[in-house]
């Protein structure tokens, strides 16, 4: 009951100086809003990055082959061949599927229109591991061997569709060779785990890539493992087999687990930075509230004196002003949380991220605005409580 009466009285006092209260709320709103928007957006960005890996699954591993001597890309040493796949698969019982692939560049034309993009030499396993879906036609397969068939990425398909309604079975010239389009891919969500830009690529049979460029080598190998694999064990097993097969090669491993861990670590640092930036505006908002409360104390000196004369204790006066400042900042904090979430929603919409409301920024926004209310309100409230009732009444 006492709380309701204090709350009601604080409301009356705040409403009697509407513009001032509004400005104080605005300061806290901007501060809390910044903190919530920054943290929330950072979390959404992280979730988006993690989603890429989670879409493919975490039971993946990729190998990148380099020459051990120079650290440069494959050169004179013995190269990984398609025929080595079976031997590599025997390295660990946890390996389910292997997809070696090449990435090359050649001048490409559709009719007379130049096409900018990568040429990926792959097997059908690549489509399964990278989860590329077809919008029409089929993917390249072992049957194609060295045949000049290709599958085109979504962006290249869009470009071709400007001149031909159905690109299937039309031809793309790569260097001096014509490749017949046998499949068109759906847009592929980009993924840092796979270095190729599939949407901007044509995918040809792996053996055909050797024909295009004799220096083409398999530098990248994707592997799908069993569910919940022991990644470290697989790495050790693969390293042992690869050292035996290709002694001069250095293998760089990459796994979604590794990348997720890295992202999470980066996010933590980034979040601290954002909190620090947001806190600056919150401190400014807090100073605004303190300033406004100090003015309020000066203006209400007579009221304070009257209250003291009729028996209000110092703690009563202190509490009265503290409740007012806390109400200002908590209300500002509430609006700030709504504003922050809305801002991150807008950002998510424009960035094509999935939108979630995270609990942490919301709770943090409220708690911090409460703390700001206590800190910025305490000094003015303390000053009010220390006023001399006679002097205060005469003012």
């Amino acid at each position, binding site marked *: 009951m006492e709380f309701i009466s204090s709350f009601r009285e604080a409301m009356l006092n705040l409403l009697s100086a509407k513009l001032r209260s509004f400005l104080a709320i605005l300061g806290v709103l901007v501060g809390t809003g910044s903190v919530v928007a920054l943290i929330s957006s950072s979390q959404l960005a992280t979730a988006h990055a993690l989603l890429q890996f989670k879409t493919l699954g975490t039971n993946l591993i990729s190998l990148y082959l380099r020459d051990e001597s120079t650290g440069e890309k494959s050169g004179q040493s013995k190269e990984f061949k398609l025929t080595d796949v079976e031997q590599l698969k025997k390295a660990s019982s946890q390996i389910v599927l292997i997809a070696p692939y090449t990435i090359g560049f050649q001048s490409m034309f559709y009719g007379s229109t130049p096409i900018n993009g990568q040429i990926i030499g792959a097997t059908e396993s690549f489509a399964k591991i990278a989860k590329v879906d077809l919008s029409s036609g089929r993917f390249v397969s072992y049957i194609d061997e060295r045949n000049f068939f290709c599958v085109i990425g979504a962006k290249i398909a869009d470009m071709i569709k400007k001149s031909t309604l159905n690109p299937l079975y039309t031809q793309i010239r790569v260097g001096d060779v014509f490749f017949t389009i046998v499949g068109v891919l759906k847009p592929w969500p980009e993924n840092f785990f796979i270095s190729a830009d599939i949407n901007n690529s044509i995918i040809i049979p792996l053996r055909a890539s050797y024909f295009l460029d004799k220096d083409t080598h398999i530098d990248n190998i994707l592997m799908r493992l069993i569910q919940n694999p022991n990644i470290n064990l697989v790495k050790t097993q693969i390293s042992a087999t690869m050292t035996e097969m290709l002694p001069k090669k250095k293998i760089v491993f990459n796994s979604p687990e590794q990348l997720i861990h890295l992202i999470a670590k980066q996010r933590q640092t980034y979040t601290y930075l954002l909190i620090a930036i947001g806190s600056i505006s919150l401190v400014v908002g807090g100073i605004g509230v303190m300033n406004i409360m100090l003015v309020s104390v000066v203006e209400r000196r007579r009221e304070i004196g*009257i*209250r003291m*004369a009729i*028996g*209000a*204790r110092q703690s009563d006066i202190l509490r009265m002003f503290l409740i007012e400042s806390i109400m200002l900042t908590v209300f500002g904090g509430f609006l700030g949380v709504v504003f922050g979430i809305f801002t991150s929603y807008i950002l998510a919409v424009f960035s094509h991220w999935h939108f979630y409301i995270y609990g942490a920024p919301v709770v943090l926004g409220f708690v911090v605005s409460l703390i700001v209310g206590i800190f910025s309100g305490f000094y003015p409230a303390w000053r009010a409580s220390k006023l001399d009732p*006679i002097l205060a009444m005469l003012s």
Partner: protein
Amino acid sequence: MIRLVDVKKTYRMGGNDYQALKGINITVAKAELVAIVGASGSGKTTTMNILGLLDKPTSGKYYLDNIDTSEFTGDKLAALRNLRLGFIFQQYFLLPKLSAIENVILPLTYRHEEKMSMHDMKQRAHDMLKIVGMEKHGDHRPTELSGGQQQRVAIARALVGKPSIIMADEPTGALDTKTSQQIMDLLKDQVEQTETTVVIITHSLELAAQCQRAIHIRDGLIQETA
């Protein structure tokens, strides 16, 4: 009830000491209506502040209901003011944001020794407004009331805590003759009906004449008691 013993009060003003009270002795009994009379600067307001526990004497003793208040500070003085004293001021000093009944309730909300429900507080405040003839104006803001009506509300506020003493500083100073008389009658009724002690601080001899006793102060000293 009230006993001031050789009370002195010295203020420091601009590096000089100014002695507002030079050793006064006052005794007021229960259910007495007493006026403290003096011209401007005589020390009557200082006396009122000390009697009202708003200020402390530099030396001397102040006994309120036989309690030596000299050693009391801050919150203890506030509690004593709330429990035993009621104030009426010349400028009424009602809070403009609150309605008449809310102004009357205010002292009860600061009564930590005796917690009352909001319903009981409202009932008590309503009863007090009825005593001063303002029960129909409970929801009015002070700005919607005349000077006389505001002073009635202020009297209700002074009475609501059932104090043993009411301190009234020029209670009719801002009112016309007719309203002034009504206010004085109200205070006299309180003395008779509830045995409350009323101390009126005034410069008006006419007002003092209506009291049972008048204490004249001049230059910080008591001149005569009539």
